[in-house]
């Protein structure tokens, strides 16, 4: 299955990544080679084969219901670009 330039741009929008013109051209060139490569697995018969979602047979992993010290506000906001009191600040939404 070949992707058009418009489809690459649509994927970039879904992934929330802004691309420059050069990047779109380069990705468009490479993308179809990659897709052709991974599509080689279609040669393998997987009728009646169950998918593997998890490697370990772990179920319902619990921890003791004990209180613990959360991060201090200073630590929480240390790495943010912008905050206001106890809130992360983002561009206007509404």
């Amino acid at each position, binding site marked *: 299955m070949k992707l058009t330039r418009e489809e690459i741009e649509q994927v970039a929008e879904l992934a*929330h990544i802004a691309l420059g013109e050069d990047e779109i051209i380069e990705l468009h060139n490479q993308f179809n080679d990659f897709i052709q*490569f991974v599509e080689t697995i279609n040669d393998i018969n997987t009728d009646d084969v169950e998918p*593997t979602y998890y490697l*370990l047979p772990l179920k319902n992993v619990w921890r003791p219901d004990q209180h613990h010290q959360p*991060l201090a506000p200073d630590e929480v906001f240390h790495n943010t670009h912008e905050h206001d009191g106890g809130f992360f600040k*983002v561009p206007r939404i509404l």
Partner: protein
Amino acid sequence: MDIFDLTAHQLADMLKKRETTAIEITRSVLERIQKVDHDIRAYVTLTAEQAIESAKEVDDNCKEKISPLAGIPAGLKDNICTKEVRTTCCSRMLENFVPPYSATVVERLNQVGAVITGKLNMDEFAMGSSTEYSAFFPTHNPWDLDRVPGGSSGGPAAAVAAGEAIYAIGSDTGGSIRQPAAFCGIVGLKPTYGLVSRYGVVPFASSLDQVGSLTKDVRDCSMVMNVIAGQDSKDSTSAPVDIPDYTSFLTGEIKGKKIGVPRELLDGLDPKMADTFKKALKKLEELGAIVDECSFPHAEAAVPAYHIIAPAEASSNLARFDGVRYGHRAVPEQGKDYDLVEMYMKSRGEGFGPEVKRRVLLGTHFLSTGNYELYYLKALKVRTLIIEDYQRLFREYDVLVTLTTPDLPFKLGRKIDDPLALYHSDSYTIPVNIAGLPAISLPCGFVDGLPVGMQVIAPAFAEGDLLQVAYAFEQNTPYHKQRPPLKKETAKGSES
């Protein structure tokens, strides 16, 4: 040999006998970094002051009695969170990120008095096989400075090989510990999925990632595993298994061990590589192992399946980098404003490098409506077939042996423009991650003066078997004792 050339267990013995101090060892390693790192470029962040402090504490409190790793300098791949020490994933996205907590693996090392010398270079977000995708600079192979150290744990592997750390901790999603270990002539272990906590390690592909060690020999590998293995309540995928003393498997005895060699991974090998591997297999036979060719029918399918599963998981994991809570945020030109989605898109567009963008976009494509069944679900079914291949093989064999990678370390810049060619470098290591198994890479010879690695694979949680076979081989071959000839070759001639 200089102090920085010794192994952790040799240094631990010297500390015990009071023949050296943690401070002396740490100074030796820090001086080594000063001398050679301008050529190797393994370190992204050096924590020399903290290292000296930790070493002093070990000396003052006789901590060497607690653990053989006390007072031994170690480096960490820069995707492992360290409280109050910058953790970048070698990405512009996290260039200034200072974690408010440490990864569990770091906490465990700190508890036993390890001395952390700093954070080591890697491909951005661990996506790559040469460390050339680091957003900062490439790392050079200590055996030949014009060549790559492998990746993504290229910084850790090069640092250990060059004596810039006695051992290092890395992560392995498709071969990122084993392939650089092979390229740099050291020992790299990718443990069973779930054996070592991933808490605080920046995720790439959560069902494939595992934390492991890069060491100068197999005994050091066992000692590091003794400290870092074990269930962690902060990682719900860490497994509730008993942790043995891994050094107890180092018997040197492998008589009667059944070793399978998948014939599908022998096809098309470079003749010199094939010859080196044959000699290694002969050595295993001489030591009493029963070596047989076997069939691994889905070996070839593992690489394309991996390149669907890993980007799909990465596209989901890396969605967290949105410029809000941490990481790079794009700032509009003066007088202009971004709306929220624009801010997300620009931040991610500016923060991620080309390989990360490529993989996130591929992953998004594979998971999008209409493609999920075609790609992702299909890859998960192929994953089942690969697991079944291994299950069948391990009914017959104790361990499987392959080369770690079909390539010798390649020249810097040679493959970076052809990502598909680069992906094949991991074709022997990827199937192991797909099945969540443990595997070790250890030196098995040299071709054209460059190290060659052999991979030993075992059933889940049978790290003991791996270490037993690897140790017997290592102790009967000279390769692990060789160190890169940096003294003659450092370009700036700073070594005497």
